[in-house]
């Protein structure tokens, strides 16, 4: 799959650059016929050769390794598996083919699907509302009652000959009364439909932000620089928190701030002080990116970038990376060392992607107990579901069984790729009386090849305890899995 995308990509970039096959082959130090095989996806392109071809084309190697395209293909595969589209099996042509040849069309299909999802959710919400809304049911009953009463009395009045005066008066006044009531019902119905309080959350802007973070590799050198600038401005012996207070004044004392965890308060305080320094740059990053198609998406991305920069101030790149390596990515230890929450530290771990000084590459996923994915950063070989719940075997769900405890496991996907997963359900907000605890499960996952640097895999025997997992049921070919929720389209 990787090679397929690379081959198609090389051909299209070569043509775009106006190069012949023999010219590019010469630059890359291979024969033209070998390049033909590569472009035709008949040969694997390995690391060193890929570097030479990229140099020959004058592009970055990452442009060729096709990680963005792979993500696109994974999403298309997920779209194809949506039962609402009526597919009983995955189309025979691979999505990689489509992505490689017609990337713009592939992207358009995904956008169209996103828009369709939004509309579908809106329709479902409205249908739910119309069929289940007690106000509407009651109004319909009142209208029918009023109309029945008026019709019946009017028919009696119309039959004039048979009525005495006092009967006529009685039925006339009944009609007047019931008309009044009916008018009131009609007015309240109109008010009900005028009220724009049917708000359905659109999934699309958040997806655009996901795509933006994926395409930028969730690493922003200029924001890291902004954070360092902020830190350089600290006075001798001044803490980050004290500097933030000096710059923006003490944090507002609200009922909520009084009960929020100290890490949350600290994060907010620093973000407020940092915003004036990095906001222009964050806006520039957001404003120029093609993945962010709407104002709403750009606003969400801006918030994500401000949070990113705040994380970079509280957990500066170099010291945090050194500490992470030393602590073998122990999140509890890192949280204590840097005075941040488990979730803030997890987030930061997924941003340690500075070229030449990279930490372990982590995928990041955050889910609520209903399975709704509230944040996702996929990884090569580990697509995270966009439109559904992930494999129930992933620890992101198991973590809800024991909040506050990190659950780790090795898992092998049907592709044969193996990963170390670890997750913890953390309390997002202080509990409110009478309501369930607000838990979110935060999961990180890294390729098994890097798991040796991560302490969470220690003591787990990879041979015997490698869980046969999937990505999500509809695209998982494991027929015997007892956790299966719905049939597979590919088994």
């Amino acid at each position, binding site marked *: 799959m990787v090679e397929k995308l690379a081959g198609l990509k090389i051909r299209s970039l070569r043509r775009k650059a106006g190069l012949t096959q023999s010219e590019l082959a010469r630059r890359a130090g291979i024969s033209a016929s070998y390049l033909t095989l590569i472009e035709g996806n008949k040969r694997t392109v390995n690391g060193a050769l890929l570097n030479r071809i990229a140099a020959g084309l004058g592009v970055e190697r990452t442009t060729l390794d096709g990680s963005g395209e792979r993500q696109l293909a994974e999403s298309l595969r997920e779209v194809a598996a949506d039962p609402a589209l009526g597919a009983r099996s995955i189309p025979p042509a691979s999505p990689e083919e489509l992505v490689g040849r017609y990337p713009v069309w592939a992207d358009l299909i995904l956008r169209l699907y996103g828009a369709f999802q939004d509309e579908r959710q809106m329709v479902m919400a409205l249908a739910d509302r119309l069929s289940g809304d007690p106000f509407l049911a009651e109004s*319909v*009953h009142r209208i*029918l*009652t009023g*109309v*029945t*009463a*008026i*019709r*019946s*009395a009017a*028919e*009696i009045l119309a039959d004039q000959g*048979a009525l005495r005066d006092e*009967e006529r008066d*009685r*039925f006339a006044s*009944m009609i007047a*009364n*019931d008309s009044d009531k009916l008018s009131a019902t009609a007015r309240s119905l109109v008010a009900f439909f005028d009220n724009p309080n049917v708000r359905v959350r659109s999934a699309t802007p958040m997806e655009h932000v996901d795509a933006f973070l994926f395409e930028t590799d969730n690493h922003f050198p200029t924001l890291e620089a902004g954070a360092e600038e902020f830190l350089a401005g600290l006075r001798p012996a001044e803490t980050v928190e004290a500097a933030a207070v000096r710059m923006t004044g003490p944090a507002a004392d609200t009922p909520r701030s009084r009960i929020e965890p100290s890490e949350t308060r600290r994060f907010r305080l620093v973000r407020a002080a940092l915003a004036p320094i990095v906001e222009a740059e964050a806006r520039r990053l957001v404003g120029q990116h093609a993945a962010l198609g709407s104002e709403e998406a750009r606003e969400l991305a801006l918030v994500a970038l401000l949070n990113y920069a705040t994380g970079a101030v509280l957990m500066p790149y170099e010291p945090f990376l050194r500490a992470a390596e030393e602590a073998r990515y122990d999140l509890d230890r890192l949280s204590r060392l840097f005075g941040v929450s488990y979730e803030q530290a997890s987030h930061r771990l997924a941003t340690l992607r500075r070229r030449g000084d990279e930490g372990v590459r982590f995928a990041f996923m955050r889910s609520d107990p209903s399975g709704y994915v509230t944040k996702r950063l996929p990884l090569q070989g580990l697509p995270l579901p966009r439109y559904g719940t992930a494999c129930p075997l992933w620890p992101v769900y198991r973590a809800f069984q024991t909040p506050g405890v990190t659950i780790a496991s090795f898992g092998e996907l049907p592709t044969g790729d193996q990963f170390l997963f670890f997750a913890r359900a953390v309390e997002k907000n202080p509990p409110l009386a009478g309501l369930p605890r607000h838990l979110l499960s935060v999961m990180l996952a890294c390729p098994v090849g890097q798991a040796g640097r991560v302490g969470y895999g220690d003591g787990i025997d990879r041979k015997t305890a490698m869980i046969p997992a999937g990505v999500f049921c509809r695209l998982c070919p494991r027929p015997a899995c007892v956790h299966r929720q719905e049939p597979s389209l590919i088994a």
Partner: protein
Amino acid sequence: MARARILVAEDEPSIAQSLDFILRRADFDVDLVGDGALALDMMKRQSYGAVILDIMLPGMNGFDVLRAVRAEERLAALPIVVLTAKGQANDRRTAEAIGASAFITKPFSNAEIVERIRELTA
């Protein structure tokens, strides 16, 4: 022949009064009741030619009244016209399943009511 007595179980006073008026004018005796449990009580104590039973009744809804009536041996064959709302197909199916003799859909015409009651008491 003695005039048939009709029980009208309807909690909306305007509708009940109109039904009372048109049925009396069509030579029936009429009892009005606005509560489901009371309606059941009256059916047990009185002998009615037919009953007009609204579904949305306080105390005990029309379905429950109907079920209780059909469970009584003496009342098993009592003609009961159920008033349903237009478009509430489920209500109608439920009422049919538990033994309604006929349905009249709101908003109804007076002539329709009289005609149906005449048929059932003939």
